[in-house]
């Protein structure tokens, strides 16, 4: 039966080439937009370079003090992360890093802007950066306060030129201090803001001692790594207990909020306890997707009705020979799905082209959009929704046609 439907569908599509073109254009274009959008979200949210141990990790992003009249929200002080979070039992390791800051350096009358980040030695064990040359600085070097640095591949090219000679052992100057390069890592896009930097320095080389500030707030974030995935809920629980027992630092505050979140929650946390970042992010994406899909769907419904009404004689004959409304509706939905899938195939081709252009335009450096399995799955899902949305109403209208009028129409 399905085979017959398929044959009919192809025949119908070839009969009215103009309508077929309109439908395919609408479907493929809409899917292209949605696919590029999902590819972008997938890349930003699901790409697990450099934090490959995501299922064992919890992310500490910010701490919020709340009082009756005031609210203060910021990332952590180094003191808090080493003294309080560092004393937790469940985590195997804790990666501490500062938020990235910019500075300049001047090489041969050229100005180079460098985003730098201070990290502890465990940072390199918790996170799996891909080392192109050399390796990370060790705990020993960090404890000694050695002026060593891990730099990104992009910055190596910018600083030392495009030749492939090794950079390890050379010196790079930042903030008027020379650091010896001990490793080069593959660059990451700025959208992974917790891990992005051009150069990574040991915290011990900071010009001011970060541990001297005994407040809770400062410029550091952390990743807690559990021994196994089973320990993650326990670790989250331990952190919650820790926060609830934390002494409140002043009279103007009555609550302290801070959460150890899995990656996605930490990424969209707004820094305001009263608003859920997750809800905002999902809401924005859904509204945009609906907005993009609504017009083409309406258009497709319109065109489909026109197409189906054109075939009223065929429907009349089939009904006269005893086909039930259900079979007819089924047939037309299948036909419409075939059309949708054809359109989505074209859409996939379009999206590959569009992604290629976005990647080569380098809107965001190191953010390479790719069409992977997840994105394809989402595309398939939207495709089905799209096909059903635009097929059901016309099919229902058609199935209600009166046999006599349908036959008389011609």
């Amino acid at each position, binding site marked *: 039966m399905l085979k017959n439907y398929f044959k009919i569908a192809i025949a119908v599509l070839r009969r009215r080439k103009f309508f077929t073109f309109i439908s395919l254009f*609408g479907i493929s274009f809409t899917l292209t937009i949605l696919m590029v959008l999902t590819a972008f979200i997938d890349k930003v949210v699901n790409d697990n370079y450099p934090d490959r141990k995501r299922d064992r990790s919890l992310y500490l992003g910010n701490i919020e003090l709340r009082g009756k009249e005031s609210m203060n929200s910021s990332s952590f002080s180094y003191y808090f992360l080493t003294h309080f979070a560092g004393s937790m039992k469940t985590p195997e390791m804790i990666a501490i890093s500062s938020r990235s800051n910019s500075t300049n350096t001047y090489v041969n009358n050229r100005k180079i802007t460098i985003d730098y980040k201070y990290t502890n030695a465990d940072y390199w064990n918790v996170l799996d950066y891909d080392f192109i040359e050399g390796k990370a600085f060790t705990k020993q070097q960090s404890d000694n306060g050695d002026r060593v640095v891990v730099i990104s591949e992009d910055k190596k090219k910018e600083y030392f030129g495009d030749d492939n000679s090794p950079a390890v052992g050379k010196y790079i100057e930042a*903030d*008027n201090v020379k650091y010896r390069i001990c490793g080069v890592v593959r660059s990451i896009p700025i959208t992974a803001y917790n891990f992005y930097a051009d150069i990574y320095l040991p915290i011990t080389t900071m010009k*001011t001692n970060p541990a001297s500030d005994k407040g809770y707030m400062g410029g550091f974030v952390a990743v807690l790594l559990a021994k196994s995935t089973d320990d993650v809920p326990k670790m989250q629980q331990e952190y919650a207990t820790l926060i609830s027992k934390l002494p409140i630092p002043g009279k103007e505050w009555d609550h302290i909020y801070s959460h150890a979140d899995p990656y996605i929650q930490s990424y969209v946390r707004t820094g305001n306890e009263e608003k859920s970042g997750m809800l905002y992010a999902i809401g924005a994406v859904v509204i945009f997707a609906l907005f993009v899909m609504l017009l083409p769907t309406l*258009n497709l419904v*319109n065109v489909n009705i026109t197409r189906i009404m054109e075939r009223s004689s065929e429907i009349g004959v089939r009904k006269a020979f005893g086909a039930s409304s259900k079979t007819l509706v089924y047939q037309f939905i299948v036909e419409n799905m075939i059309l949708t899938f054809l359109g989505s195939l074209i859409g996939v081709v379009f999206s590959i082209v569009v992604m290629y252009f976005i990647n080569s335009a380098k809107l965001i450096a190191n953010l390479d959009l790719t069409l992977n399995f997840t994105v394809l799955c989402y595309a398939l899902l939207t495709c089905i929704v799209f096909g059903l949305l635009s097929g059901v109403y016309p099919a229902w209208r058609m199935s209600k046609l009166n046999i006599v009028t349908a036959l008389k129409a011609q």
Partner: protein
Amino acid sequence: MIWNKKKQNSLLISEIFLSFLVIFGVFSFAINSYRNYITPMGIEYKNLWAISYNHTLETNNPDSVTLVYENLLRNIKAMPQVLSASYSTGNIPFASNHMSTGITYKKEQIMNINQYTSDENFPKTMGAKMVAGRWYNKGDAVNRDRIIVINEKLKEKMFGKEDAIGKVFGDYDDKKKVKIIGVVNSVKYEGDYQRPGYGMYKLHDTASYKWMGKIMVKVTPGTDAGFEGKLYKLMATTLKKSNIEIEHLDNKLRGANNFTLIPLIIFSIVAAFLIINVALGIFGVLWYNINKRKGEIGLRRAIGAPASSVSMQIVAESLIITTLSLILGTFFAVQFPLLHVFDLPAGVYILAICLAIAFIYLLVFICSLHPGRQAAAVYPAVALHEE
């Protein structure tokens, strides 16, 4: 005729209605950006640099701190390529860094006022012009808490056309009173495509050096990275433990503009495709309708209607449908200026509505021209024979 087929037309109407809203949205965005673009920037951002520093001096003696920072500024100014330099708070142009406050004037609170703190060289360094009154001078340091300079936009909000100089207003709680001594022109702090906000400028005191965090430097045209390196070294040797960064305001402006331009370009591309989609759809539906109504058209032709009148009928019918959906669309669009959604000036919305209406009419007209002509080409004999 149209009423009889209201079911079929309702889909077409809602489609045109939605397209209208999309077009209206894109036009409002574009017109608003354009209107902001043509208002003057308010400062001379070319050859203007911003140096960031943080306070890391080891001494706690306020006098020596002040001395270090004052000497630093003097040394920067003494460099040959530097035309002028001044301290400023972190909310410099195009930095998307905000410090806002509220004030009370005649019992009425005005919120979201950007508060800038800087020194007496500020207008000269930035290239801002005084509209009325004067900027701060050395002698104002004594009573800096009692005087204020506001920007033109805030002046218009508070006083309209009246003169602002010498007027007094209170802070957020209406406690501390300050007197206006000058009005400076409004500056588009968020880049070319964003409106200037309300602003007021305070004079710094010696304690502010610790947290202001920026030095604005105006240099002569053609100054190269070599000089910038020297400037950097001067900063780095004076403030040894500080993190120093020098940024060029024209680069920052480009970054700030992208925040408006990239969404605008993406929306326009998406909208353009949606509209092409809709146009093809309308075209297809009309075309089909003509084929179905061959009998009626043939009859009209047979009893002597000229070809032009037949094609006019088709075009007119589609324009009537358009009018119906535009009435609906305008009703919704008018809510935007009435309810002050997004706080854009009403003129932008009204212009956007007019342009969107014209655009949709034109679109439908073009889409119905060909089906109309096709209808006119129907031979009465053939059409009636079919029936």
